[in-house]
């Protein structure tokens, strides 16, 4: 994790499924609620698998951060997981950074 300009980057890794999601949520929220960053970035570079439990995780973090007018970004998403996120309708949310920057 690294913080700069009130941007908190959390690098996720491994499989994100129902089994992992609960503990992940607790770990993320412990840090996020303490720091209340303007920008929370979830970096998916090292994520090896995700199912819809991960969608729930992202949506919950989105609600959390927008609760204090913060922004959530989801970056370095592997292609298969992009497919899932598109199916889930996450493409309609402003969580993918503009083309030319990191992200989708």
């Amino acid at each position, binding site marked *: 994790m690294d913080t700069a300009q009130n941007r908190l980057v959390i690098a996720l890794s491994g499989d994100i499924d*129902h089994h992992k999601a609960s503990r992940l949520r607790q770990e993320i929220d412990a840090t996020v609620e303490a720091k209340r960053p303007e920008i929370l970035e979830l970096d998916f570079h090292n994520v090896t698998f995700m199912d819809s439990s991960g969608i729930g995780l992202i949506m919950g973090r989105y609600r959390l951060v927008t609760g204090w007018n913060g922004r959530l970004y989801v970056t370095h998403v592997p292609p*298969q997981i992009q497919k899932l996120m598109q199916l889930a309708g996450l493409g309609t949310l402003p969580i993918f950074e503009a083309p030319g920057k990191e992200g989708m």
Partner: protein
Amino acid sequence: MKPINECRMRFPSLSANEAYARSVVSAFAVQCDPTVNELNDLRTAVSEAVTNCIVHAYRDTIGEIQLHMRLFEGGRVVVRIRDRGCGIEDIAKAREPLFTTGGEERSGLGFSVMESFTDKLRVTSRPGSGTTVTLEKHIHGRSEAGETV
């Protein structure tokens, strides 16, 4: 029609077995020489079905999940996930995108994912008895996709 290969597994509805079920299905599908995408589609769909058993079917208890995998001629993989849990009252409603009986952190997308990532999805259930989800995925394989070994 007889399968050219099959495998049956039974395991308890522990969430640690979600990853295990994905590995098992991946291992079974390898004989079809799937592309990365085909394999990921199949294991994601199975992950959703198994998760439903754990989160919903056996919500406050631990029960048995049966996984039955069959391979038919032409790369057709059929995976059946069966539980003896609480069952689904209204299957059509359950299959609606975003509908969930699971609370705030559940996305309600399990069946949508299963439907999108496989070629055929069948759900049968009897409340109080259990649910059976049958997924079919046609694996065309890497050589057909033009991928080199």
